[in-house]
């Protein structure tokens, strides 16, 4: 049973290949804002160097943001296209979920993801569910709050927490946008 996690929401391009819930291989690269040049070659590489075919993937996990608008779209488009064409179940998670799920047992409280000019924050229950919505705040507001510190992502813990989630329709896999863009204000 192979699973593949795709994450392009920040300055890195990440592909994590699981076999039976354990990390078999991973490619995590700083892209220097060139996600497009790095993402598909990395996918090709992680699949081929493990001597499998993309059709051997049994489920896909994709990070839908929030984060860099252009960055996150790269991973989302790749993931939804594979899921749709090869009929592979796909599950989505947010960039905050990555932090929350990295702990073996989830700690309730506030989590944050840094963005160029501010932070995306979300409050989580101990069952891993988001209370209310993800919000965008500036540095000043950020400094007034305290957050649960997650040092490193733990992909095997992340897997355990998404395992039970329901797959979604690939057509409906789209980035989440927290910060309003100028024209929409």
């Amino acid at each position: 049973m192979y699973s593949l996690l795709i994450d392009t929401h920040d300055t890195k391009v990440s592909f994590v290949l699981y076999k039976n819930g354990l990390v078999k291989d991973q490619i995590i690269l700083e892209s220097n804002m060139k996600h497009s040049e790095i993402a598909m070659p990395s996918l090709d590489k992680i699949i081929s160097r493990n001597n499998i075919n993309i059709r051997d993937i049994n489920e896909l996990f994709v990070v839908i943001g929030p984060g860099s608008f252009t960055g996150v779209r790269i991973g989302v488009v790749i993931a939804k296209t594979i899921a749709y064409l090869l009929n592979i179940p796909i599950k989505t998670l947010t960039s905050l979920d990555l932090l929350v799920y990295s702990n073996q047992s989830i700690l309730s409280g506030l989590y944050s993801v840094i963005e160029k000019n501010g932070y995306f924050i979300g409050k989580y229950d101990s069952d891993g569910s988001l209370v209310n919505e993800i919000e965008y705040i500036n540095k000043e507001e950020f400094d007034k709050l305290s957050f649960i510190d997650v040092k490193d992502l733990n992909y095997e813990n992340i897997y355990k927490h998404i395992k039970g989630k329901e797959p979604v329709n690939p057509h409906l896999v789209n980035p989440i946008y927290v910060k309003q863009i100028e024209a929409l204000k």
Partner: protein
Amino acid sequence: MKDVYILAVETSCDETSLAIVKNGKDVVAMEVYTQMDTHALYGGVVPEIASRMHTEAITLVLESLLKKSNIKIDQVDAVAVTYAPGLMGGLLVGIEFAKTISYIYNKPLIKVNHMVGHIYANNIENQLEFPLLAMVVSGGHTELVEMNGDYDFKLLGATLDDAIGEAYDKVARIMGVPYPGGPNVEKLARDGNVSYQLAKPVNDNTLNFSYSGLKSNVINLVHNYKQRGEEININDLAASFQYVAVDEIIRKLSIALSNKKYKMVVLAGGVSANQYLRNEVDKLVKSYGTILAVPRMLYCTDNAAMIGAAAYPLFINGKNIVDFSLNAKSHISTTD
């Protein structure tokens, strides 16, 4: 020879379009999902909204394309994608989508220049004949290109400042004409007379174009009338602007046509949908004993069929076949 089927992807601006094209000429199936109504709410194309809508639509557009097509996706010989010029965010959605299909089905990936696509739109229902003179007119391009064979380009001239479509859009904004500005200015001009004196661009014998002077001329005129509290006849102003804008094309085209005998003249790019421009160019081209090719309206505006048509000679000659590191480019010339 075996038939060649190309799956083509076009997402450079505000249409999500996919097509399957046989031998660069027969459109097996095409889908065009336009975002125009959404952008109209903002008075112009908002790049971030365009990228979002491409992402939301792309697999749905593929699903309806495949329903229409008797060719299955794994039966195509190659995947072609517009990589430039256009809006970066939109181009990237199409590029990643095309790469993924190319990867899954192990098909060659071909990069296509959007402007060249507009020229090859004329190869769908007509046959391009060389030597050919292409007048490329769009929101980002005003270029006069000679072709002596497939992909054998020579840039004869280009705009030194604004593109003709850009001038139409800017003038539309000054005149308070809603989006899409260019086509609306043309509509207004139909009921107007050329009554305002607008300066013609510098009259030289090069094949270069200039539109920023004409644009400033309209801005100043509107400003002066407003200051004097006088009413402007918007139809007449549209007609006066259009007369000078199109005259610039006619003047340069006639120099090029006097310099060399061409078998065919092609109008390509978004502004080729302008009926007044088409008529004027048609008259000129006929007077030189040459034929003008203009695509059907469906293939005039952005569409993936033209990308499939432009990719065919590339596929046959093994050109522009790229790997998965392909990136988008916002600005390139037709001849790049």
